[in-house]
C-alpha cells in the first residue's frame, strides 16, 4: 500500500491542492470495521458522531479510524442499501466491529425532493430512484440508454444505434404534448429528425440544468426521476414533463485517498437487418419482373439501355464499363470493347456470368457489390476512467477523467468524448460549507451526416450497383442523394466538436441551529462547431451541386443561473418536525449561431473557408457564398419559490410547495404564473395499533399540484417576420401570426400511492395511480384556409394522461452466500384529449378526415385530434387478399375503380398479383374514405425486469424490458417490395419467399407482387398516401404492412467477479473487479421489421441498435 502511494504521488500533488488538513482536538482514538450480515467488509459506509460534525467513511477493507470526543458518544453508521445503525461507544472502547443489515430496496435512502432532502420513509412524492448497479454496466457512453425499462413510467424510445445517439426524448407518464414520440425515423448529426413537439424532462445535474446525454455514466452517484406534482411543482414552469435529478460522485471527509482505474472494451455488431438477395437472385428477379409487368414502365430503357442496375447497355469505348454505375453488362459487348483478358480478370475477381432470363442465349456479365458486408462492421469501443477521491476533516475531493471512443457498426461512425470532473467540498468552519463543481467535456462525434440519404436510401441499393471503379476509387453511387458511403468517406471531411464547461459554486451557511442559507451560482457554456469540407471529386464523375463545398457552423450557448435559498428546520416538542424553505431563482440563457458556407475552393488542403467571395465561371461572376448568417437569442426566467414539509412522529406526513415563475417570451400580461402543490402521507405501519407481522412498511400517500411548460418562442407571442429573397432583392414576409393571449401550459397531477414493505422490507411494492391533466396545452390550432396561415400557436385544449405504475423489488433468495435480487416494473398509461377549443365539429375535432364508418354506416370525421379520443391512431387501406389471376383482377376492375393507384396505374388497371383493397363503403371507388382504423402508434404498457444474482464475489445480472400495445408500419419492407419511386432498391429475400405472390395462380399470399416504381407507375400496392396515415413517405399505409410491435427485449446479461482480497494481498491493489456483458441480445416479438422499439408508427429503417459485447476491469489502489 505504501509503495503504491509512492507511485501515485504525482496524483496526490494535484489532490493536495484542494486539501486542507487540519488537526484534531483532545480526543479518543477509535478504530473499527463495518461488515454486512454475511461478514463481508463494507466500503464507503459513512460513520458519524451524533451531535458532532465528526465523520469518516470506511475504506475497501471496511475499516475506519475516528477520533471521538472524550466521554460517551453515539456513532451513526449509514450506507446506501443498508439500514442505518446507531451504536453507543463507551470511553473505554478503542475498537469496534459493526454489522449492517441490507435493506432490500432503496426505501431507506435519502431522496431529493425539490430543494430539500428527505428520508425515503417520509417522502410524499412519486420519485423513482435508479439502482446504481444499473449504471455500472452501461456499455454505451450515453447514460440515458441505461434508463430503459428500469423506472416505471419512464419511456426511453431508442430508435437509432448511432454511437452517442440519444432517444428522441425521455417521456415520463405519457408526457404533456400530443406528439411526444414524433414522426421521424432517426437522427442526423445526433439530433432527431422528423417533428416531435415533445420537450424533454428537466434534467438537473449537480444543481445545473443541462442535457443528460453526454454525462459520463461512471461519475453518476445517484439518479432519480420525479414524476408527480409534489416533486415537480417546485420547478414550476419547467417541471411539467417530470424532472430527472442526477448527482455526481463526490469525495468523503476523513477518507484515505483511493485511486480507481476502470477499463471497458466493447464490440458492437449489427443486429437486425433486412435479408437482401444476392446479385444473382436479384438480377433474375429484376429482369423478369420488368419484362413481365403490366405497369407502363419504359421497359426497353430499363432492360437494354442501363435504365436500372439490372439493365444492360452497349458500351462503345474501353474504360466506360469500369466506372459505370451498373455492374450488369452484356458479356459479348464487354469482351468486344475491353478484350477477353479484361473479362477473364474480372471473372477471377468474382464477376459472374448468367444466361439472360428474359432473352435466353444472351450472356450477362455481372458482379455482386457485397455492399451490406462492406457497410456494417464490428465497432470497437474503448472506455477508460480514472478517478481519485478522498478527504480530510475539512475538505473532500473527487476527481475523474474519462475517455470514451465508440465506433459504430456503420462504417465511419464514431463518438469520442473527453470528460473531466472535479467535485470539491470545503468546510472551513462548523457552520459553513462550500461546494465547487467543475466539469469540462469535449465531444467529437462522427455521425452519418445525411441520415436519410446515406442510411435509409443509401444502404438499400441493389447488389448490382458499382461501389468501386476499376481504378479503386469509389463511385458516387446511384445519385448524390443516394450516395455511396465510401465516396463520402473518401471525399468529405466533417469535424464536429462540442466543448462544454459547467461550473457551480454553492454555499451552505448555518446561521443558527436548523437555519440554513444556501446560495449558488452556476455557469454553463457550450460551444458547438461543425466544419465540413468536400474535396474536389474526379471530373469524370457526376458533380455535386456545389463543388468543393465548405461549411462552418458555430452554435454557442451560455446559461447563467443563481439560486438563493433560506431553509429552516425545527421541531416543536419531540414529534413535530418542520422544514420551511424559501428561495429565488434567476436564469438567463443566451445563444449565438454563426453559419457560413462557400464553394469552389481552390485546393483540397485548407479545411476552413479561404475562397475569394466570387469566381468567374464561363464569363459570369458567381458568388461563392452558399450560406451566410448569424443569430442571437436570449431568454430569461425569474422565479420565487417556497417549500415546506411537516411530519408528526414520522407517522403523519405533509408537504407543500409554491412557485411563482416569470418568463420573458410571454406577453406582458401573461408573463407570470403560480404553481402550487400539496401532499400528505400516512405511515400506517408506524402506528402503535399496527401489528400485522409480515408488513414492515405500509405507507399511503396522496399529492396534488401543478407544473408548467414554457417552450415558446418570442414569435409565438408577438408574431414573426422572416427574410426572403426575390429577384436578388431582399424581402421580408410575415412568418407566423402573433398570439399575445398565450398563457402558460399547466399540468395538474394527482397521485395516489401505496408503499408496502414485507418481511423487514425484504419485499417492497409501490403502486402509484395518477391522473395528469395538461391544461391550455401549447400547440398549433388549425385556422380556416382563408387565413394567411394554416395554424396558430394556441392554448389548444386539455390532455389527460392517466395510469398505474407498479414497482416491485425483492430479495427473492438469500441463502448463505447466494442472493437473488429482483426488480420488476410495470406502467400503464392512457392518453386522452379531454378538451379542444369549440369549432362546431363533433368532439371539436381538429385535422380530421372524412372516412366511412362501418358502425353507423355513414361518412364521419375521424383522426386528427378530438375530445375524448386517444391521439395518434393508425389508419390504413385494408387488404382483402392478392389477385390470383388476371381474370380475377379483370372482374374486379369491372366493378371497382382504385383512385389511389398511380395515374398511369389507373389506366392500366389491376392484374394478378395486385392487392385487393376493400371498398369499405361499397361505392365502387377506392379512395380516402375507405381507410380503416388499425390501432395506435404508441405503447400503452411499458416496463422492465432486472435480476441480480450474487454468490460470494460473483454477480450475474439479467435485465429485460418490454412494451405492449403499439403498431408499426414496416415501411422499409414495403418500400423494398414496391420500390417506391425508385428502380434501384435492393430486394429482400421476402420477394422470393412463400408469402409473396409470384406467378399467375398463386393463392392466399400475404404480399402483393414485387414491382418497380409502384408509387409512380404501379397500383400503389405498398404506398398509398393515406390522409390519416402516418403521413411519412417512408411508411406504408397498407394493412398487411402494419404489425403489432409488442416486444420483450433482452437488454443485458453481465457477469462480474470481485477478485478475493487474499489473491490481491501480494499486489498493490485494494480491489479488482472483472466483468463481461452482452447488451441488446435480442427480442421476443412478432414484429418482423428492423426495430420493434418504434413508437412513431414508422419503421423506415436506418441505424439499427447494435448488439454489444464487452469486457472490462476496475482496479482500485
Amino acid at each position: 500500500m505504501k509503495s503504491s502511494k509512492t507511485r501515485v504521488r504525482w496524483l496526490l500533488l494535484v489532490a493536495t491542492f484542494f486539501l486542507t488538513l487540519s488537526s484534531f482536538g483532545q480526543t479518543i482514538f477509535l478504530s473499527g470495521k463495518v461488515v454486512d450480515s454475511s461478514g463481508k467488509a463494507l466500503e464507503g459506509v459513512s460513520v458519524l458522531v451524533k451531535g458532532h460534525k465528526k465523520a469518516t467513511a470506511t475504506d475497501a477493507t471496511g475499516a475506519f479510524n475516528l477520533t471521538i470526543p472524550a466521554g460517551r458518544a453515539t456513532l451513526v453508521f449509514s450506507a446506501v442499501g443498508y439500514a442505518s445503525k446507531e451504536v453507543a461507544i463507551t470511553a473505554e472502547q478503542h475498537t469496534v466491529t459493526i454489522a449492517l443489515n441490507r435493506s432490500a430496496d432503496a426505501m431507506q435512502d435519502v431522496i431529493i425532493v425539490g430543494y430539500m432532502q428527505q428520508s425515503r420513509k417520509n417522502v410524499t412524492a412519486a420519485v423513482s430512484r435508479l439502482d446504481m448497479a444499473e449504471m455500472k454496466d452501461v456499455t454505451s457512453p450515453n447514460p440515458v440508454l441505461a434508463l430503459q425499462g428500469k423506472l416505471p413510467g419512464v419511456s426511453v424510445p431508442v430508435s437509432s444505434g448511432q454511437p452517442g445517439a440519444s432517444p428522441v426524448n425521455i417521456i415520463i407518464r405519457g408526457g404533456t404534448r400530443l406528439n411526444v414520440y414524433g414522426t421521424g425515423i432517426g437522427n442526423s448529426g445526433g439530433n432527431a429528425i422528423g417533428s416531435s413537439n415533445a420537450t424533454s424532462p428537466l434534467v438537473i445535474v449537480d444543481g445545473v440544468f443541462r442535457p443528460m446525454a453526454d454525462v459520463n455514466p461512471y461519475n453518476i452517484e445517484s439518479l432519480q426521476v420525479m414524476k408527480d406534482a409534489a416533486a415537480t411543482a417546485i420547478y414550476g414552469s419547467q417541471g411539467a414533463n417530470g424532472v430527472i435529478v442526477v448527482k455526481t460522485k463526490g469525495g468523503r471527509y476523513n477518507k484515505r485517498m483511493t485511486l480507481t482505474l476502470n477499463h471497458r472494451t466493447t464490440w458492437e455488431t449489427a443486429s437486425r437487418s433486412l435479408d437482401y438477395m444476392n446479385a444473382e437472385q436479384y438480377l433474375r428477379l429484376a429482369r423478369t419482373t420488368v419484362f413481365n409487368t403490366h405497369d407502363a414502365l419504359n421497359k426497353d430503357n430499363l432492360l437494354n439501355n442501363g435504365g436500372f442496375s439490372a439493365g444492360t447497355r452497349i458500351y462503345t469505348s474501353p474504360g466506360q464499363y469500369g466506372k459505370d454505375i451498373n455492374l450488369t453488362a452484356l458479356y459479348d459487348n464487354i469482351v468486344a470493347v475491353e478484350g477477353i483478358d479484361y473479362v477473364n480478370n474480372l471473372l477471377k475477381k468474382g464477376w459472374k456470368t448468367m444466361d439472360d432470363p428474359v432473352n435466353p442465349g444472351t450472356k450477362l456479365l455481372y458482379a455482386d457489390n457485397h455492399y451490406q458486408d462492406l457497410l456494417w462492421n464490428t465497432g470497437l469501443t474503448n472506455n477508460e476512467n480514472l478517478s481519485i477521491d478522498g478527504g480530510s476533516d475539512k475538505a473532500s475531493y473527487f476527481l475523474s477523467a474519462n475517455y470514451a471512443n465508440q465506433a459504430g457498426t456503420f462504417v465511419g461512425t464514431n463518438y469520442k468524448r473527453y470528460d473531466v470532473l472535479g467535485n470539491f467540498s470545503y468546510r472551513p468552519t462548523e457552520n459553513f460549507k462550500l461546494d465547487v463543481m467543475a466539469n469540462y467535456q469535449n465531444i467529437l462525434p462522427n455521425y452519418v451526416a445525411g441520415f436519410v440519404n446515406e442510411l435509409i436510401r443509401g444502404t438499400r441499393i441493389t447488389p448490382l450497383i458499382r461501389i468501386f471503379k476499376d481504378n479503386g476509387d469509389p463511385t458516387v453511387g446511384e445519385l448524390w442523394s443516394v450516395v455511396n458511403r465510401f465516396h463520402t468517406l473518401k471525399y468529405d471531411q466533417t469535424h464536429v466538436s462540442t466543448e462544454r464547461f459547467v461550473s457551480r459554486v454553492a454555499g451552505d451557511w448555518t446561521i443558527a441551529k436548523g437555519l440554513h442559507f444556501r446560495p449558488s451560482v452556476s455557469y454553463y457554456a457550450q460551444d458547438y462547431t461543425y466544419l465540413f469540407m468536400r474535396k474536389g471529386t474526379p471530373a469524370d464523375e457526376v458533380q455535386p451541386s456545389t463543388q468543393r463545398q465548405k461549411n462552418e457552423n458555430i452554435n454557442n450557448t451560455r446559461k447563467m443561473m443563481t439560486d438563493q435559498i433560506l431553509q429552516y428546520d425545527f421541531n416543536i416538542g419531540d414529534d413535530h418536525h418542520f422544514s420551511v424553505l424559501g428561495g429565488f431563482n434567476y436564469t438567463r440563457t443566451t445563444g449565438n449561431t454563426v453559419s457560413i458556407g462557400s464553394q469552389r475552393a481552390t485546393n483540397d488542403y485548407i479545411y476552413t473557408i479561404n475562397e475569394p467571395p466570387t469566381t468567374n465561371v464561363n464569363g459570369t461572376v458567381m458568388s461563392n457564398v452558399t450560406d451566410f448568417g448569424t443569430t442571437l437569442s436570449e431568454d430569461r426566467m425569474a422565479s420565487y419559490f417556497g417549500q415546506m414539509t411537516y411530519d408528526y412522529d414520522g407517522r403523519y406526513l405533509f408537504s407543500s410547495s409554491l412557485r411563482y415563475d416569470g418568463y420573458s417570451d410571454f406577453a406582458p400580461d401573461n408573463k407570470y404564473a403560480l404553481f402550487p402543490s400539496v401532499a400528505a402521507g400516512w405511515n400506517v405501519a408506524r402506528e402503535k395499533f399496527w401489528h400485522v407481522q409480515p408488513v414492515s412498511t405500509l405507507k399511503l400517500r396522496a399529492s396534488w399540484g401543478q407544473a408548467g411548460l414554457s417552450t415558446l418562442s418570442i414569435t409565438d407571442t408577438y408574431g414573426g417576420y422572416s427574410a426572403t429573397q426575390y429577384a436578388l432583392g431582399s424581402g421580408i414576409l410575415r412568418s407566423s401570426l402573433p398570439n399575445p393571449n398565450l398563457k402558460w401550459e399547466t399540468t395538474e397531477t394527482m397521485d395516489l400511492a401505496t408503499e408496502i414493505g414485507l418481511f423487514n422490507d425484504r419485499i417492497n411494492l409501490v403502486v402509484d395511480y395518477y391522473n395528469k391533466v395538461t391544461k391550455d396545452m401549447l400547440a398549433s390550432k388549425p385556422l380556416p384556409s382563408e387565413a394567411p396561415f394554416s395554424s396558430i400557436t394556441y392554448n389548444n385544449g386539455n390532455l389527460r394522461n392517466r395510469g398505474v405504475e407498479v414497482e416491485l423489488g425483492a430479495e427473492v433468495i438469500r441463502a448463505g452466500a447466494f442472493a437473488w435480487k429482483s426488480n420488476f416494473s410495470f406502467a400503464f398509461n392512457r392518453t386522452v384529449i379531454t378538451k379542444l377549443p369549440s369549432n362546431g365539429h363533433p368532439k371539436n375535432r381538429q385535422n380530421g378526415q372524412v372516412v366511412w364508418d362501418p358502425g353507423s354506416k355513414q361518412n364521419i370525421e375521424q383522426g386528427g385530434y378530438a375530445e375524448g379520443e386517444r391521439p395518434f391512431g393508425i389508419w390504413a387501406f385494408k387488404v382483402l387478399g392478392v389477385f390470383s389471376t388476371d381474370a380475377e383482377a379483370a372482374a374486379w376492375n369491372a366493378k371497382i375503380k382504385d383512385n389511389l393507384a398511380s395515374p398511369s396505374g389507373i389506366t392500366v388497371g389491376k392484374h394478378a398479383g395486385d392487392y385487393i383493397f376493400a371498398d369499405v363503403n361499397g361505392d365502387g371507388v377506392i379512395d380516402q374514405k375507405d381507410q380503416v382504423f388499425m390501432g395506435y402508434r404508441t405503447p400503452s404498457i411499458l416496463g422492465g425486469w432486472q435480476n441480480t444474482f450474487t454468490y460470494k464475489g460473483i454477480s450475474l445480472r439479467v435485465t429485460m424490458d418490454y412494451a405492449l400495445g403499439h403498431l408499426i408500419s414496416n415501411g422499409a419492407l414495403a418500400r423494398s417490395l414496391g420500390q417506391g419511386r425508385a428502380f434501384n432498391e435492393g430486394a429482400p429475400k421476402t420477394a422470393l419467399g412463400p408469402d409473396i405472390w409470384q406467378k399467375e395462380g398463386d393463392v392466399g399470399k400475404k404480399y402483393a407482387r414485387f414491382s418497380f416504381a409502384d408509387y409512380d407507375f404501379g397500383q400503389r400496392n405498398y404506398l398509398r398516401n393515406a390522409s390519416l396515415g402516418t403521413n411519412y413517405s417512408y411508411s406504408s399505409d397498407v394493412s398487411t404492412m402494419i404489425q403489432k410491435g409488442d416486444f420483450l427485449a433482452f437488454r443485458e446479461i453481465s457477469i462480474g467477479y470481485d477478485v478475493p482480497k487474499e489473491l490481491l494481498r501480494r499486489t498493490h491493489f485494494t480491489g479488482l473487479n472483472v466483468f463481461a456483458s452482452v447488451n441488446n441480445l435480442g427480442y421476443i416479438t412478432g414484429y418482423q421489421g428492423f426495430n420493434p422499439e418504434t413508437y412513431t408508427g414508422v419503421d423506415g429503417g436506418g441505424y439499427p441498435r447494435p448488439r454489444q459485447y464487452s469486457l472490462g476491469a476496475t482496479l482500485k489502489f
Partner: protein
Amino acid sequence: MQKLVYIFFLSGALSMLAAGCKKMLNVTPKSSITDQNYFTSEGDFDPYVTGIYTSMRSLANNITYGTERSEELIPALNSRFSTAWAQILSPSTGALDYNAWYKAIGNCNLLLYRIQGFSFSDAPDTKARILAETYSLRAYFFFHLTRIIGDAPLMLQAVVNDNVPLLARSPAADVIKQINSDLDSAILLFRSVKNFSPKTYPSKYRFAYGSAQALKADVALWSAKVVGGGDAALNDAIMAINEVQTTGLSLNQNFKNVTGIRAAGNPEVALAAFYLRDETGANYGLNALPYKTGVQGALNIDSLPYCATTSNGQGAYQISTLSRGLFNANPNDKRIPFTWVTERQASGPKISWITKYPGTIYTDDRVSDNDIIMYRLADIYLMKAEAFAALSNTDSAIAYLNLVRERAGNGDYTGATDKLTVEKEILDERGRELFFENKRWYDLVRFHKEGVIDVYQYVPNLAGKTTPLFWPLNSTVLANNSKLTQTDGY
C-alpha cells in the same frame, strides 16, 4: 476566510435585490422581427412587397393547375403527374387546399392595412408604386384562384391574430369585379407617379403599368368567356392590350431567345417570375429535362437537354403526340427545335423531350432555372386576336395571329375566315406558341366554355369522364370553415 464567506453571501443578497426589478424579464429580440418592431417605418413596406413576389413565383411555377389537365404532357421515363393529369378529382383525391393563395392574399391585405398610417410625404411615388404593385399582386392571386375553383371567398381583411372571419364563397363574377377594381386602382396609381411613362418597366420581374394591363386583358378574356362578362369584357381586353402595345415591347426575331434570354433583358417579356439556381433552385422544367442514364446511347444525345443526375432532370414529362400534331401543318415551324427534340436511339425514335425551358448549364450540371414567363408580347397578340375573333372581327384577329405566325416562319394565315375556324386556329396557335408555358388548361377552358372545342373530347384523359373543370376543395378547407360549400359537380 470569514471575509470570503461574507462576500459570497453579500453578492447573493445583491442579486436577490436586483431580481426585484420587473425589467429583468424584458428581452429585446436581436435576431427576430416581430409585430412589436415591424411596420414601424416607411422603409418596411418595400421589402414586404418584394417578399410577396415569392408567392407569385411559386404560383407561376405550379403546373398542376395551368398545365396538367391539358393535353400537353405525357409520361416519359418517370412519372411525376398528380391525379389532375389523370383527371381523377374528387373531394378525397386531388382536392385543393387553397391556403397558399390566401397566404399570398393575406400578405397583400396586411400591407394595405399597415400602410394606412404612413404618409410617405417625402416619397409619394414610392407609396404609389408599393400600393400599385400590391393591388396588382392581389388581383393576380385572386385571378389564379378563381380560374381553379370559380367561386371563391373574398378575403380582403388583414388578419392579425387568431380571429379569422368565416367567409362563404363569393360568385366568380364578384371575384372578377374585385380583381378589376384592384387592377384599376393599380393602373391609376402607376399612372400617378411623377413623369409617368408607359414604357417604364422598372423590373420585368415585378408588376409595372404594362404588365398590370396585360393581366387586365387576361382577366377580361376569362370574364368574357367563362364568367359571362360578354362583349364589354372583350372590348376591355382589347383596350388593355392597346395600352400594353404602347409600352415598347417587341418580339424576339429568333424564337430561341424567347426563353433563351433572361427576362430582365428580353424585349418581348412583360412579366416573368424570377428564377436563378442560387436563389430558387429549379423550376417546373426539372421534370421535363431528361437525365443522362435515361438517354445514353441516343444518336443525337448532344442535342438533348439532358442533366447528369436525376436530381436536376427527372425525365418525367414529354410533349404529347397531340401537341406535336399541332405543328403538322408546318413541319418547318421555327419554334419546333425550341419546343421539343425527339431522342433517336439505334432502335428508332424514342422520347420527345421538351426544350422550351432548357435550363442553364453550370460547371456541375444543367439546372432548370430559366425565368418563368408570365406575359410576353406573342401571348398578348394572341389574346387580342382571340378577343377580336370572339367579337366576330376575324380580320383583325387574323392580323394579330399573323404577327405570331410570321416570326415562326409560317407566313400569313390562309385558312377559312369564319369565326369558328379562326378561333380554333387561334387556340392551336396558342398551343404551338405557348407550349409548356403553363397556360394551356386555362386556354382550353375558355374555348370550351365558348363552344369552340369540347374539352371532354379534346383532352384524351378527360374522354368519357365528367370531372368538372374546377377543382374540389379538400376536407381541411371544408372542415375549418362551415360556411363553405363544395365546388359544383362534386
